[in-house]
């Protein structure tokens, strides 16, 4: 083997893999990115159809801060608005979250919950939500939504699903005021890693979210190698020693994986430390995008639908990003929680569209006559499910990593966390320097891939 430091191997050409390679480069370490599929971007893909509608996977929002950090803010447009409401009844759509304070029964029950004897153990999501928000708000709004995108009852979910940095009430009001004054979609509690501020607002890159991945990929020293699935990760029991990519063994002492953590465990050779993550479940999403005539059909950009609808959220992205649909036309996205194999997942595209059109009435009464077309996307990696069942293992992954030196699992699916692209970026920026230093230190590979091979063939 050559005397120069071998490159760090990055698995996956989605935003996390590309950003990891970008940060490694800044830390003076070469990286090779291998993507199994035919193209980069993963869940951050975009396309424009023949009728002039542009889509991402679901609706994606990014901030001016994130885009400035990548040097691509000049290629972005500012969102004139962004807002979320909760559908309580055909007439009632309180703004999330402050509008909910205008609903007397929610306030009463929240106050009652505070004066009642405090509950000691709040490790279960259902208890924690009822404690934090009051029983009424939890049971009518928060828990049904949580259950829809988790696919488990709230008493089987961990309280750690609750955001680490909730935006306080006073700050929310202040940010909404700034939104009004600046006519910009000021970010309110979107990113976990870095705080909200009046100067941090939503923007959208020309060419869609995929343009972000393309921009980062263009800046890498080495092109991403597509059509190159990782098949094995070799370890000596303690540390990574190599990988097999598309039938080819490569020596390395550092691997950054962006694969779903439960998939990553299946590639490990020479250690069973990751086996505990095999049980982790992702909740799938069926995303139905309806193309309609008209604009501003919903009460706000995002409508949460905790009751009475087969989907948990309805989004009209062109309200926030007017340029992604032709003039006087719009897109309504309905998101169903689903699991590969279940009844929702198995719907045909026609059935899925029909299920949306036949239920959207309370929000858009004349939806059927507006319908121009539709597309359906099934995303098996919608949300990591924070099941109580494996909560200790999830917490361990978050705190200690994979348990194998040199093997780093990053990104939304790799960390098994409800994070956005910008969170991934700041986390990588903080983590990569130590990974790069460790990689330098271990640049003399202790055990050869052959060694591990032999051990395994005799075992």
């Amino acid at each position: 083997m050559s005397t120069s430091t071998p490159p760090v191997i990055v698995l996956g050409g989605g935003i996390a893999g590309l950003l990891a390679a970008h940060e490694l480069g800044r830390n003076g370490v070469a990286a090779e990115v291998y993507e199994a599929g035919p193209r980069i971007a993963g869940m951050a893909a975009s396309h424009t159809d023949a009728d002039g509608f542009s889509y991402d996977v679901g609706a994606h929002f990014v901030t001016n801060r994130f885009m400035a950090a990548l040097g691509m803010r000049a290629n972005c447009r500012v969102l004139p608005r962004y807002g979320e409401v909760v559908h309580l009844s055909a007439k009632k759509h309180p703004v999330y979250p402050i509008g909910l304070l205008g609903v007397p029964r929610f306030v009463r029950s929240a106050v009652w919950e505070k004066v009642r004897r405090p509950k000691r153990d709040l490790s279960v999501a259902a208890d924690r939500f009822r404690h934090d928000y009051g029983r009424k708000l939890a049971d009518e709004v928060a828990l049904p939504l949580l259950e829809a995108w988790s696919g488990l009852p709230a008493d089987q979910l961990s309280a750690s699903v609750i955001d680490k940095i909730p935006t306080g009430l006073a700050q929310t009001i202040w940010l909404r005021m700034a939104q009004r004054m600046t006519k910009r979609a000021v970010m309110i509690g979107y990113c976990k890693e870095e705080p909200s501020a009046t100067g941090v607002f939503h923007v959208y890159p020309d060419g869609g979210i995929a343009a972000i991945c393309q921009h980062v990929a263009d800046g890498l020293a080495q092109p991403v190698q597509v059509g190159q699935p990782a098949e094995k990760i070799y370890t000596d029991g303690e540390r990574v020693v190599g990988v097999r990519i598309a039938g080819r063994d490569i020596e390395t002492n550092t691997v950054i994986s962006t694969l779903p953590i439960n998939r990553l465990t299946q590639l490990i050779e020479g250690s069973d430390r990751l086996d505990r993550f095999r049980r982790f479940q992702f909740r799938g999403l069926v995303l139905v995008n309806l193309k309609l005539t008209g604009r501003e059909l919903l009460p706000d950009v995002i409508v949460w639908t905790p009751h009475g609808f087969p989907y948990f959220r309805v989004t009209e992205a062109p309200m926030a990003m007017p340029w992604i649909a032709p003039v006087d036309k719009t897109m309504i996205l309905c998101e169903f929680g689903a699991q590969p194999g279940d009844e929702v997942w198995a719907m045909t595209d026609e059935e899925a569209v029909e299920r949306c059109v036949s239920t959207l009435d309370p929000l858009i009464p004349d939806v059927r006559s507006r319908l121009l077309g539709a597309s359906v996307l099934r995303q098996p990696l919608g949300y990591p499910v924070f099941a109580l069942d494996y909560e200790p293992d999830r917490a361990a992954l978050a705190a200690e990593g994979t348990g194998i030196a040199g093997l780093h699992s990053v990104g939304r699916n790799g960390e098994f966390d409800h994070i956005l692209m910008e969170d991934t970026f700041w986390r990588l920026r903080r983590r990569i320097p130590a990974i790069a230093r460790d990689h330098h230190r271990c640049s003399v590979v202790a055990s050869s891939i052959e060694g591990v091979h032999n051990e395994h063939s005799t075992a």
Partner: protein
Amino acid sequence: MAADERESVTLENVACCICGGVDGTPVGVGEDFEYHTTSHSFLAVRCPRCELIYLDPRPTPASLPVIYPDEYHAFAFDEEQFGLVHKVRSRLEARRLLRAGRGLPADAHVLDVGCGDGFHLDLLRQHGPKGWQLHGVDTDARAVAAARGRGLDVEEQPVETSALAPGSIDFALCIQTIEHVGDPVAILRAIGKLLKPGGRLYLITDNTGSPDFKITKGRHWGGYHFPRHWNLFNKASMRKLAEAADLEVAKLSTTTSPVNWTYSVRNTLVDWNAPSWMVNRFSLKAAPALAAFTAFDTAFTVIGRGALLRVILRRPQ
């Protein structure tokens, strides 16, 4: 400015100029509120070890002609345009400079690094001892031409390649320059070489330990001067900078300036679409605002939190 020129601003990622780290965390994001030279936004980050605030990414050197347009104030702070404000400022600056230069020999060699149009050298020539030998360096051809037009001895050079003899300078000035350059450590090292052993460097730069930074750092702080201020210091990072450049800190204090306060307010108003009559109350030509903020900042200077850092560094004996 033509649209194609605007787009010619290209950006590059950079490291902390003191420790070389690349893990700065975001502090502020904003645009060129003052000159609108580019449609990019810029991110100010903080080095978690040094407390340095720096732009990352920042414009490439090739973009400098675009982000310093002809009307840039450093080259146009002349008397006719700024009248009374100019007079007050001159008087104040001359006093400060001479105080910093007390105890120098009668034939001292003085070097102004980043001398611009020669404003400070000119003050020394007018108000300082007649025997002082005054030199300047600046990299901007327009600035150098202006300074030479005043009859000053100015090299068009970065200080690193100055033709001045090593160890020949008694007193160097670096006034509101360090924040504009890519590698402050290199500049300070170069100045250190030109100084005599024990020679002093008088340095002024924006203070990120000031209350106006604290209040407006998210976007509108005047001291960001997006995208022209690349490295910004507080007392802690200034000490680290001096250490990295092998200079001793002889004195580290703050001094009063109304400029950042004025621009912090102005940038907020511009950004929040305030009417122009209101915006115009806050500029370098608006004497009432400048006077009020001077008074205000004086109070903070008393408690060591003035708008500018005022530093005296010394080449070790």
